[in-house]
């Protein structure tokens, strides 16, 4: 027998009726995308854990204001966006990934380094690329970084980013375009690109 997988709307309704299990299911369903987004914004696992918890607690407390016509994920990402941007605006210094962070669990370096499936040289280059990408992302201004992570990493649509950030469609598209260009310039400056692999990075 195929088990019925509850929709987000059903879980929200269950939570509003007082079911803790329904809320727990919502948290489990969205903990990875929310945590990934926040972690790549703040670059600190402990802060990301705290902020991600805060996102879900805020969502729980404001659930009665959720309009079921929205997608729950869009609404949740809007809370994640506001919470993260508020944190960054409070002026808490961001943790910049260290170049020597070989074992930094949770950053791109760690997840890209799949040494078990590659030769040591390929694994080293993959790690190098991951570190560069991490650095390039961390150099984007927060609103660009958020757009890039939502669009490219989370696969969100333009409309979902508009709803999460409260920005008009044109601004979102412009931000994404500029963010992508800046990311490309940063990666090129770090020595990546066709025909340049290893050249600039070796210097």
């Amino acid at each position: 027998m195929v088990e019925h997988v509850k929709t987000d709307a059903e879980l929200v309704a269950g939570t509003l009726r007082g079911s803790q299990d329904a809320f727990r299911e919502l948290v489990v369903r969205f903990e990875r995308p929310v945590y990934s987004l926040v972690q790549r914004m703040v670059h600190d696992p402990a802060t990301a854990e705290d902020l991600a918890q805060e996102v879900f607690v805020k969502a729980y407390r404001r659930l009665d204001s959720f309009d079921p016509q929205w997608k729950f994920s869009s609404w949740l990402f809007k809370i994640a966006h506001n919470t993260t941007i508020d944190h960054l605006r409070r002026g808490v210094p961001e943790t910049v990934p260290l170049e020597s962070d070989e074992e930094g669990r949770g950053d791109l370096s760690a997840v890209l380094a799949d040494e078990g499936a590659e030769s040591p040289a390929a694994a080293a280059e993959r790690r190098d690329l991951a570190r560069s990408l991490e650095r390039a992302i961390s150099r984007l201004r927060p609103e660009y970084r958020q757009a890039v992570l939502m669009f490219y990493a989370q696969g969100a649509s333009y409309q979902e980013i508009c709803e999460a950030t409260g920005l008009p469609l044109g601004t979102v598209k412009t931000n994404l375009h500029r963010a992508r260009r800046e990311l490309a310039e940063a990666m090129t400056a770090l020595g990546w690109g066709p025909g340049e692999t290893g050249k600039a990075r070796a210097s």
Partner: protein
Amino acid sequence: MTAMRPSPHDALNRWLAAERDASLEAGDAADVADAALREVFAALPQLAPAAGFADRVLARAGLQPATRDVFASRALRLALVLSLIAVSFGALWVPPAVRVLARLWTLSDAVQLGVRALAEGSRGLATALRVGEWLFALGRALSVPLMTPQVMAALTAGLLVSGLAFRFLRDQLTGERSLSYVDPLG
């Protein structure tokens, strides 16, 4: 077995090539770049919080108390077992030790020991009081030259400057930062 993930390098090169390829129409280049960059990110698994995240969220939302199994740690369990063994062995020595002490000591011995301990304690206290008195006298002697108006003014000014400097540094470190972007590569 570890599954071979597609290398993100090809997608990265396609993305960067599309960004600099002037021969493509702007829309085409953007589409190619978008698709390639999505491929780069698709090669990256999503990050995950530490296990038990949902429980911590529920506890923070006040839905259930945060329970923590204190015996979850293997080191703690081992330490507990070793402590119990040590206490058990120690307990075996208690009755013979009490018997030996009872044979060795009489009531007058115990009283004598108590009086001697009291005398030693009083002597220690007197020594401590003498040291305290000496320190107090030293402090008073040192404070006399500092009580002049000039020294007090200099001290106050020094404290004021230090306080202002500390506040300035703290503002620099934690004050609200402008979110306007400065290209660190430029």
